[in-house]
């Protein structure tokens, strides 16, 4: 997925078109790949400076940055710290103390004293000083791809980003595809109908702030449809997200199928190392509001989802919940006599929901907001397929 501000779109007469990267961008793709290759062993800051220069090659800067985002996913950056940077700084600054360090000799004297104390070389200490900064990380590995693949990956990422702002997607394709339907169901309510050799899938979800979370599932959906020889996609897109009306976006196997594709999977060496489950600070309970957790932990929604893999939680659309708890919640809601929000919040809190409103919305309930929030009437929109 790309940052939305890097999308290149044109809007006209209620339609929105993506400016995809085509052959004329091949030379730029080659240059960027070369820049990344040449910066292996250098810092992210140095790489950024070089990429900044590429913005002056005459291409749209959004294209340059968008392609860089795709390439960045194929990079491994490592910290160059030999000692904890915060400790290194404290030791060095205290050693320098009240002295004025104005010459290289004086600086080396201070660094040598501290390096000896910490058991590292002066060079290692110097490199560690600000190694915790993003710009100081070293590009350790870059997984090269072909320029044509880069353009395809960029086009796919652009389409995913735009569709993440949709609320209604219609997909027509030849034949039947259960895998595709599974992908659709992960996005929202999904209806499939067949007419002759054609199938039509309509997926709907409420426009959401969980753009990154939607993008993960959209990527799988697009990846799957790209394997079909004939397809047509129509979507209603709110882009930018504050747009007052939706725009119509269309893509077909003819215009997009050829220039879009998933990138070859990166086979990172670390994959050979047994993966130790990360400690999950704070992700507790059987009901997890993905956006809220992401905000609290300072990570992306996709990262929260990744961390919760294997816990047996069911994704009901932005909220993950255990089967047992889901039954409990459904029973509690079924038994509720008072369908006003205030009463339902109390009911849901009792079964352990920390964010009852998100839970209600994820379960397919709608809220008719009243001036007094507690008096808002809650009603069931649809039976949520779980």
């Amino acid at each position, binding site marked *: 997925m790309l940052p939305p501000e890097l999308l290149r779109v044109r809007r006209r007469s209620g339609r929105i078109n993506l400016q995809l990267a085509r052959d004329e961008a091949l030379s730029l793709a080659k240059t960027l790949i070369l820049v990344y290759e040449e910066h292996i062993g250098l810092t992210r800051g140095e790489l950024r400076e070089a990429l*900044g220069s590429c*913005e*002056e090659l*005459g*291409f*749209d*800067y959004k294209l340059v940055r968008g392609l860089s985002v795709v390439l960045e996913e194929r990079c491994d950056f490592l910290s160059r710290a030999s000692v904890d940077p*915060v400790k290194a*700084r*404290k030791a*060095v*600054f*205290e*050693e*320098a*103390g*009240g002295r*004025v*360090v*104005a010459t290289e000799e004086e*600086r080396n004297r*201070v660094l040598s004293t501290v390096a000896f104390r910490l058991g590292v070389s002066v060079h290692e200490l*110097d490199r560690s*000083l*600000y190694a915790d*900064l993003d710009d100081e990380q070293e590009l350790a590995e870059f997984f090269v791809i072909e320029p044509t693949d880069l353009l395809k990956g960029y086009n796919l990422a652009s389409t995913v980003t735009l569709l993440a702002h949709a609320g209604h997607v219609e997909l027509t394709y030849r034949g039947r595809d259960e895998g595709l339907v599974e992908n659709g169901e992960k996005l929202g309510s999904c209806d499939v109908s067949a007419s002759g050799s054609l199938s039509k899938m309509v997926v709907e979800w409420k426009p959401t702030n969980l753009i990154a979370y939607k993008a993960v599932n959209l990527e799988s959906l697009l990846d799957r449809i790209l394997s079909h020889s004939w397809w047509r996609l129509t979507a209603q897109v709110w882009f930018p997200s504050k747009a007052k009306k939706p725009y119509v976006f269309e893509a077909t196997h003819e215009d997009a199928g050829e220039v879009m594709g998933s990138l070859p999977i990166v086979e990172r060496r670390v994959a050979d190392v047994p993966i130790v489950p990360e400690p999950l600070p704070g992700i507790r309970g059987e009901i997890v509001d993905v956006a809220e957790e992401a905000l*609290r932990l300072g990570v992306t929604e996709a990262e929260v989802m990744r961390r919760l893999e294997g816990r047996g939680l069911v994704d009901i659309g932005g909220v993950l919940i255990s089967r047992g708890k889901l039954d409990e919640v459904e029973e509690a809601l079924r038994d509720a006599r008072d369908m006003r929000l205030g009463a339902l919040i109390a009911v849901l809190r009792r079964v352990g929901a920390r964010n009852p409103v998100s839970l209600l919305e994820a379960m397919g309930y709608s809220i008719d907001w009243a*001036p*007094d*929030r507690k008096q808002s009437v809650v009603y069931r929109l649809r039976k949520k397929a779980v």
Partner: protein
Amino acid sequence: MIVLTYDGGNVVASGGRIPYGKHDPDSGTYVAPAFRYREILEDLDRRNLEYRDDVYQGLTCPALSSSIELRDYQVKSLEAWRKSGTRGVVVLPTGAGKTVIALKGIQELRVSALVVVPTLVLVDQWKRRLEDEFGVKVGVVGGGSRQVRALTVATYDSASINAAKMGNLFKLVVFDEVHHLPAVSYRQIGLMYTAPHRLGLTATLSKKDGSRASLRDIVGDVVYEMNVDELAGVHLSDYTVETVHLSLSADEQQEYDRGYGQYRAFLSRRGIRFRSARDYQRFVMRTGRDPEARRALLARNRAMDIALNSSTKIDYLKELILTNPEDKALVFTRHNKLVYRISREMLIPSITHQTPKEERTDILRGFRSGRYRRIVTSRVLDEGVDVPDASLAVILSGSGSSRQFIQRLGRVLRKREGKQARLVELVSRGTAETYQSRRRKRG
């Protein structure tokens, strides 16, 4: 009988009209914005109407005792605030003791009070200060905490997000660094809280940008104002401001001329002239769709980078510190990149927005105790943070904002016996930075 209640940022009256109230035909009530609460009560009292007031739902403030003794100008500012009906803005330079004025005001009114501040660091500072002064527990709303007490400190962000829920819990709101309040997202704090008593504090409030007018309704007029020069020597340290013009190195000058020349040539070719900040904004927006404009902007930025971060400035800084080794110095820059360069080269502790909280606290503590004699920073220490006493401020680079300049100057003005504060501003000669320097000192 008229019954007044609070509902999500509004005062709702049933049973009769209220001033500023719009009739809601569905409920038959009158709804007025919360900040009019005080005027509504005054109007009902004046008209001798019978009413029940269920608006306020806050806590009772315990008795507060304090040992604060105000200086003469602080007494005057508090009197002025009282005279204007406990509403209004006090403008005093950094280091002149605005906090104690607010503490005295809270103590005198003895009502539930919310202090709104721009950063989490300031939340900690105010909480500590209120607890130390009054010996009571203080609530905090912001940074993951949501505990409301009779005395509560909140960030602008949290006070704004929770305005609908907290708007009727306080009788006094103190807006620290009140110049932030007119911003679109924060203005609703002023509108959605019912607090009849309001105090705004700031070191700088422009007379030109309309912020005074926009604060009039929601906080009040400026009731007391003194500038640095009026307090220097008596309550603040004597100070000098020196502007040192430095030439770029030959290579830097060549590079600067090339970049800035490219930018100027583009403007002249297209007949673009900047008559206001808005014109410049339009130009920046244009760079999103016009590649040539973008190249010109990038060339300008490269040139300004050279002017702001020139190597001759760093050489001068080294000399300055060598000749004043005993001075406690704060070095300010515009960009973090320069902060880290100086920190690395001269082994000076640095503070930026990326500095972990514990490290920042340790550096400020070390500076206070004398363990460190210098700190290099970008913009995070410009306002609010309680920076220990320093006597030398060096501005390596900054914006054209006079507010930033005054705040940076304020960092060295805390009074100490025999102290002569110095602010040294380094400007690259013959570059657009000279214009920025003039602009920030124009005030």
